[in-house]
């Protein structure tokens, strides 16, 4: 079983690494933020798997903290002052 | 009664009192000045009591937390710690007095006064904590405290330039600390302890230990601004308010150097340090000449003094090549003596520069024309302090250089003689340039009145710096308590 947990965690880690392409490409700030949000969910899954594999509940605490704080960065992003994503939007409109 | 008074805990109060006072000054900004003054009055007393207790009694060393060393943190009360605590208490006291005048109550920047005292008291307390620490990780923590409070104090002047200088200093400081910490990590991984004394007994000349030494020395060299890693120093020391510049040059640069001394003589004596020692000596020699030449070229007084610090740091690094087996005590003593006397002299010079800036509105050398007349006391303070920077007898600077020359001759490293000599001549030249402007016969009467706390306290420091050679015997005896060195200091003086 441990091999399965770690193996699955490994694949999830790879999806994060691949997902970084979206952060690099954008094109809007919102797209990048969205990718970070997705990484949070994946990281929770990885931590749960690692915790089960290592039989350690402390790792699940880390996962719980991630879950509790999953929205903080994104909410800050939406609510902060002077957001203008306009400078990047041109890229998005014509982008298919 | 003597049991009550002669107790080593005075040395720990030197850390706890200023930190507590910093918190108090932050809580009650209206009273910050008086809290600062009270602390400044108390700390020299504590330092004196602590030194007496160590020299007169033979109590067991104390630790923080009361745990034995691989587990707990050892607190040092050896000669190096004692002299640095004493110098810090003295210089800190004078800087505090000066700051009372420099940051008046009715300042247009209320915030400056409000935050100077907590930050300065933090810096003072963390310097003291650093000097008594005998634990590599604890030294890292205290060094971070010293760096961070220095950064905040540099930025205190406000404005884009000061902020940029502070930020650059922060990055440099973090880089140096991280390099040092990486070395500490390697040592901890190998020996499961970060206690200096225990490590000194265990360390052998493996390649990994050499790597750790290289990392730690590199980090500390960056933090103490040895050529060519001095590039951040002139801006940082010049942009800061004058009392801060004084503290930076007198104490903060030395903090990293003290750690380096402890590493070199106590942690790594078993390693093959021949090449590193000569490299440091070479860089020190270049620093002496380069710093002095740059000082000679400056048009602003504060920059001139800052470059002079670069040169003086170069002398401190001559300790490492000169510390050969037969001259180890000499090199050590010369280094410690130079640190003490440079702290006194350089801080006095920065305070004078600050006062001139304050009164003349600029510290351009040309604005000094005729300053010898109306604010003559400043010129006197500057001249007296400068004697130790140049190295004229009977100043401590002269004495330290004399010891270095002795050590260089005994070990056959004659090439340091022309370096020291040219450094002395160049220092005389740049000081003469300042005095030439100051004593120019120009009638000026437009200087505003200077508060007396900005005039007289620096004089104390420069007189001490000047007369240090005459009273050097006692401080040297204290500096050699528990010092990890042997050999004769000079022909007529053996520890």
């Amino acid at each position, binding site marked *: 079983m441990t091999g399965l947990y770690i193996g*699955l965690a490994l694949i999830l880690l790879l999806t994060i690494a691949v997902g970084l392409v979206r952060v690099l490409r954008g094109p809007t700030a919102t797209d990048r933020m969205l990718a970070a949000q997705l990484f949070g*969910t*994946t990281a929770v899954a990885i931590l*749960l798997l690692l915790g089960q594999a290592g039989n350690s509940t402390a790792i699940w605490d880390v996962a719980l903290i991630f879950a509790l704080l999953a929205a903080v960065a994104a909410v800050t992003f939406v609510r902060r002052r002077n957001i203008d994503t306009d400078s990047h939007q041109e890229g998005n409109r014509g982008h298919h | 009664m003597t049991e009550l008074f002669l107790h080593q805990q005075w040395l720990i109060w030197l850390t706890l009192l200023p930190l507590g006072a910093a918190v108090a000054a932050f809580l009650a900004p209206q009273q910050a000045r008086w809290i600062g003054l009270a602390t400044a009055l108390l700390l020299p007393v504590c330092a004196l009591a602590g030194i007496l207790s160590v020299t007169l009694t033979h109590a067991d060393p104390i630790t923080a937390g009361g745990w034995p060393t691989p587990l707990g943190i050892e607190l040092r009360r050896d000669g190096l710690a004692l002299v640095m605590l004493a110098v810090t208490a003295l210089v800190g006291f004078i800087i505090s007095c000066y700051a009372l005048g420099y940051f008046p109550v009715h300042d247009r920047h209320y915030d400056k006064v409000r935050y100077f005292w907590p930050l300065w008291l933090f810096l003072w307390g963390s310097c003291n904590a650093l000097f008594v620490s005998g634990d590599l990780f604890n030294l890292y923590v205290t060094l971070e405290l010293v760096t961070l409070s220095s950064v905040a104090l540099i930025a205190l002047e406000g404005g884009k330039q000061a902020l940029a200088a502070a930020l650059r200093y922060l990055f440099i400081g973090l880089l140096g600390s991280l390099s040092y910490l990486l070395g500490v990590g390697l040592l901890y991984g190998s020996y499961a302890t970060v206690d200096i004394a225990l490590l000194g007994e265990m360390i052998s000349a493996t390649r990994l230990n050499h790597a750790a030494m290289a990392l730690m020395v590199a980090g500390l060299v960056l933090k103490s601004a040895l050529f060519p890693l001095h590039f951040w120093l002139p801006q940082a020391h010049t942009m800061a308010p004058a009392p801060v510049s004084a503290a930076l040059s007198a104490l903060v640069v030395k903090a990293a150097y003290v750690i380096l001394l402890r590493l070199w003589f106590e942690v790594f004596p078993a390693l093959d340090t021949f090449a590193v020692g000569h490299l440091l000596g070479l860089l020190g020699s270049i620093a002496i000449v380069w710093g002095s030449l740059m000082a000679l070229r400056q048009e602003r007084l504060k920059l001139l003094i800052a470059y002079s610090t670069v040169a003086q740091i170069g002398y401190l690094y001559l300790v490492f090549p000169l510390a050969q087996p037969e001259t180890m005590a000499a090199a050590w003593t010369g280094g410690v003596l130079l640190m003490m006397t440079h702290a006194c002299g350089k801080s006095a010079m920065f305070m004078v520069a600050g006062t001139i800036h304050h009164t003349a509105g600029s510290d351009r050398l040309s604005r000094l024309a005729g300053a010898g007349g109306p604010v003559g006391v400043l010129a006197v303070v500057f001249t007296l302090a400068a004697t130790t920077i140049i190295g004229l007898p009977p100043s401590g600077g002269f004495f330290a250089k004399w010891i270095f020359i002795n050590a260089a001759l005994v070990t056959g490293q004659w090439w340091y003689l022309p370096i020291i000599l040219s450094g002395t001549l160049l220092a005389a030249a740049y000081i003469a340039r300042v005095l030439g402007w100051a004593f120019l016969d120009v009638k000026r009467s437009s200087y505003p009145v200077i508060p007396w706390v900005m005039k007289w306290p620096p004089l104390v420091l420069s007189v001490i710096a000047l007369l240090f050679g005459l009273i050097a015997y006692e401080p040297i005896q204290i500096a050699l308590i528990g010092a990890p060195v042997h050999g004769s200091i000079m022909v007529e003086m053996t520890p």
Partner: protein
Amino acid sequence: MGIIDLISASLLLCSLPFFLAGTLGLLRFPDLYCRLHALTKADNLGLGLVVLALMIQADSFQVVIRLLLTWLLVLVAGATVAHLIAHQAQQDGHQPWRR
């Protein structure tokens, strides 16, 4: 390998396509609004399956609650963030993608 392990393993394997789909969606969907789906649906379902797989392995009720709480929190956060971001994007004048 007991029956519980078997179920758990198959649940874990089932979760994998969801995570992969989420990442694929993040990379290949044409605009912001579409990518939001990848975020809120696919990955949260994948996580749900992982949580389920671990829950049936759990040896105490407390652990079950903790796992469930973690999943619910991620769900709530995902939904809130998706709503806020979509709302914001609409206000900023993002046009939904049309073929």
